[in-house]
Every structure is written in C-alpha cells, then in structure tokens.
C-alpha cells in the first residue's frame, strides 16, 4: 500500500486548479494529445464559479448570453470529457520541483495527500490561490487549531463526550450541529441572528433539538477562548445585547465560509508580483520554462481577470506546451470545424 502510494504518477501535464481556466486547459491540451491530471483543493470542479457563485448568472462568456457558474462548470466538464482527465480533488499541491532543463523541462509535484506526480509541463490555473476556511479574529486561535479548534470534521471521535461549540448559520454549521449532537456531551450553536441560510429541513431539525433541550442556541459571537496546550476549556460568548458570558467549550468549530489564500504557490521559486505570477503574452509561460500560468493567477500588461481571458491564455500556452511534450513533432494549426483528426479526438468524427 505504502509503496503504491509512493509511486509517482507519470503524466504529460499537471494542471493546478480545476476552475474554468484549468478545465479549458484540459481541452486545449487534449486537442494536442497532451494528457492531463488536474488537482484542486476543493471537493469538486469549478473553482470560484462553483464555490462562490454557483447560482449567479454570468453574462460575458462568448456565445453564452447567460449562464450560471454551475452551468458553465458542467458544460466545461462535458466539453473535456473526450480527453479523460484524471481529477484529484480535496488535494493541494504542496511542492513543485524542477528536475529538467529549460529545453527539456520535467517536474516533480507532491500533494498534501502524499501523492507524487512526474510531469513534463505544469499549468498553474489556481485563480486567487487555494480556498481555505476563514479563521475568525479570536486571539490565539492558531494555538488550538487541529487539536480543539476545527474547520472541518475529519474524525467524529474527536468530539465524543466533549462540550462542543459551533459558530455559524449555514449548511456546514447546521449539518455538523445535527451530526455531532448525539456524540457530544453538550452542544451550543452560536449565530449572529435567528435566521439561517441552510436547507429548511436542517433548520427545523435543529430547532426541534433546541425545543427538546438537547442543544443550546445562542445569539451572539465567540470573542475569546482559553485553555492549555492546545486543549480548549472555556470561551467568551458575547451576546447580541453586548453581555459577555463564559461558557464551557472543549471543541470549537467556526464556520465562516472560505477565503482565498495564495498558499504554497508562493514557495515554488517563481517570480511573483503582488501575489500574481507574471507571464509573457505569447505563451503565458512563467519565469521558469515549462511552467505556465493561466487565468486569474497570472499578470501581464493589460490583464483582465475575466473567464474568457483564461480561455485564450490556455489555448496559447498549450501551443508552447506541445513543443516541450512532443519536441520532435511539428504542430499543425487545425480547426475543430474542419479537421477530421481533431474531430476524432473529440469523439464526433
């Protein structure tokens, strides 16, 4: 098992990020016979489109007068299906090391899940960076993270017979309130208002638990925490009326959604400019040959952070990527409308 895990995955290209720019890169690379593995920290494809605005309409995709973030993602997934990309979700690329030369690049990437990839080229399509849970401004919260403050539940057992405090009013907060209540010694749900933006059945199930005295619901916020060696003991609950109160709190789960952090990309030795990766506008290659950056994460004179810019960049970067992956092959420019070769690849011929 261990050996299996340690064996490197060989691929033509690793695409970091499964947002629209990353997904369309699969398409453009695929037309040039370049096989892709796609890695994203989120549990699904779509990046910001699915995570931030799945239901909100987008009006500036060429040829699509109106579509939602989710529809665009679904359509892109359908469009790239013929190229059978391999997705690695819930994973973050931690290290990127160059093994090759400028003429013949080669890279080794490792993820936080322990996977190793060997790739000839790398496409960074990481948007604003990786989505990470928002950390509330509670002093010294860092010291408790992973031990008694959690932003996700990895093991239910961590919460057994504990006094648990959950903060938030969305689906995550309510789902974990319902799931942890039977396990926890006590559970307090803290939210700023008496309204919840969660599935109605979760809200009513939570309200029933409150009515039955099985959980405590408090209006307000957590302002300070106390404990020892990473183990929480107490928290200050500041009510909406301004009154502060000490409550027992051994496990704290704050749910304030996600935020974008550049993350490990900053440590890959690439030239950065205000958290963006400078590229040229011919190939969209970074300061390191063989590493391309497309979509919101790159910068160049006149850059517009539009989805359509990411698409254009993916197409041009793929042309150069072909030179690295197939150094001996001549690249013929072809149209999907007329080339039987491309149509065969798309499975429509």
């Amino acid at each position: 098992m261990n050996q299996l895990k340690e064996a490197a995955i060989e691929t033509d290209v690793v695409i970091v990020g499964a947002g629209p720019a990353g997904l369309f890169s699969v398409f453009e690379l695929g037309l040039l016979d370049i096989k892709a593995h796609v890695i994203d920290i989120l549990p699904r494809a779509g990046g910001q489109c699915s995570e931030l605005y799945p239901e909100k309409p987008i009006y500036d995709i060429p040829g699509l007068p109106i579509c939602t973030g989710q529809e665009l993602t679904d359509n892109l997934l359908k469009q790239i299906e013929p190229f059978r990309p391999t997705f690695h979700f819930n994973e973050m690329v931690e290290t990127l090391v160059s093994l090759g030369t400028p003429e013949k690049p080669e890279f080794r990437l490792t993820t936080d899940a322990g996977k190793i990839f060997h790739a000839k080229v790398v496409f960074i399509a990481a948007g604003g960076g990786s989505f990470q849970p928002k950390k509330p401004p509670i002093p010294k919260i860092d010291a408790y993270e992973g031990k008694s403050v959690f932003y996700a539940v990895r093991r239910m057992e961590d919460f057994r017979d504990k006094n648990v405090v959950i903060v938030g009013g969305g689906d995550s907060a309510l789902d974990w309130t319902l799931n942890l209540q039977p396990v926890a010694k006590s559970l307090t749900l803290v939210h700023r208002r008496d309204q919840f933006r969660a599935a109605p059945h979760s809200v009513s199930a939570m309200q029933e638990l409150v009515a039955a005295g099985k959980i405590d619901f408090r209006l307000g916020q957590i302002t300070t925490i106390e404990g020892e060696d990473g183990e929480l003991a107490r928290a200050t609950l500041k009510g909406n009326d301004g009154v502060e109160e000490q409550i027992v709190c051994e496990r704290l789960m704050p749910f304030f959604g996600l935020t974008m952090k550049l993350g490990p990309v900053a440590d890959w030795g690439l030239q950065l400019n205000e958290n963006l990766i400078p590229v040229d506008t011919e190939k969209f290659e970074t300061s390191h040959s063989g590493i391309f950056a497309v979509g919101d994460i790159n910068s160049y004179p006149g850059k517009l952070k539009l989805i359509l810019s990411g698409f254009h960049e993916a197409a041009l970067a793929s042309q150069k990527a072909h030179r690295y992956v197939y150094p001996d092959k001549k690249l013929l420019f072809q149209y999907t409308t007329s080339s039987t070769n491309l149509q065969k690849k798309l499975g429509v011929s």
Partner: protein
Amino acid sequence: MYEEETGVMAKMSFEDAATRYGAEPGGGAPTKVKITFIDSQGQARTVEGEVGSTVMETARRNDIPEIAAECGGACACATCHVYVDENWTEKAGKASQMEEDMLDFAFDVKPNSRLCCQITVRPELEGLVVTTPAQQG
C-alpha cells in the same frame, strides 16, 4: 468613464441629458461624491466615488486597505464588510436578504454592517463615512 456615463444616463430623461451635455455643462446631478473610509486603526482616507459605481469599487480604485473584495462584487464572499457611520445608515439603506445571508460569513457583524459592493454611489451619499474592520478573510 464609460461606466460613469451610462450610470448617469440611466437615471436621467432625455431632456436632462440634453441640458447636461448641452449649454450648461455644469448643471445636472453631481457625478462624483466624496467618501471617507476610516480604517481599523482610525486613519481616515477621503476619496471620490463615481455615481453609479459601488462603494467597494471606489475603495479598490483608490487602494483603500482592509477591503479585500475577493469575489469582485458578486455579493458572494463577505470580504468587503464595512460599518456605515450612524449618520449615514438611513441614506445608505438596509442590506438585502442576499446580503444579510452573506454577512453571516463576516466577523463581528453589527447593526450598521454592510457589504460595500452592495452600496451604489448616489448623489445623496456625498460625504458618506464608513469604517473598515481589522479582518475580512
């Protein structure tokens, strides 16, 4: 420029527009208002906001700190949270249901909390004062 023109035009009748772009270039509604952003340390910065744009866009164009606006104005991230000065809460208006929902993801939300991507700059907001929180994301 483009935005400003269309934003203003949308609110004016043809006669108004003719007056504005005709003989009296100075007439008509103002196209810019002053907005003051006070940061969490108490430092105030007064900038001009274009009528028709949003307070968030005004902040971004003027490099106002403590406004992250990660989602770019889609009311989808709660990182352009501001506290509207109490003299302005009425004129700035109340948060919509969507905005209230999104404020659940902001920290230390108060009754005068707004997401400033949802406040459109209007002539009556001349002199608006908002305070930014220390932490957005």
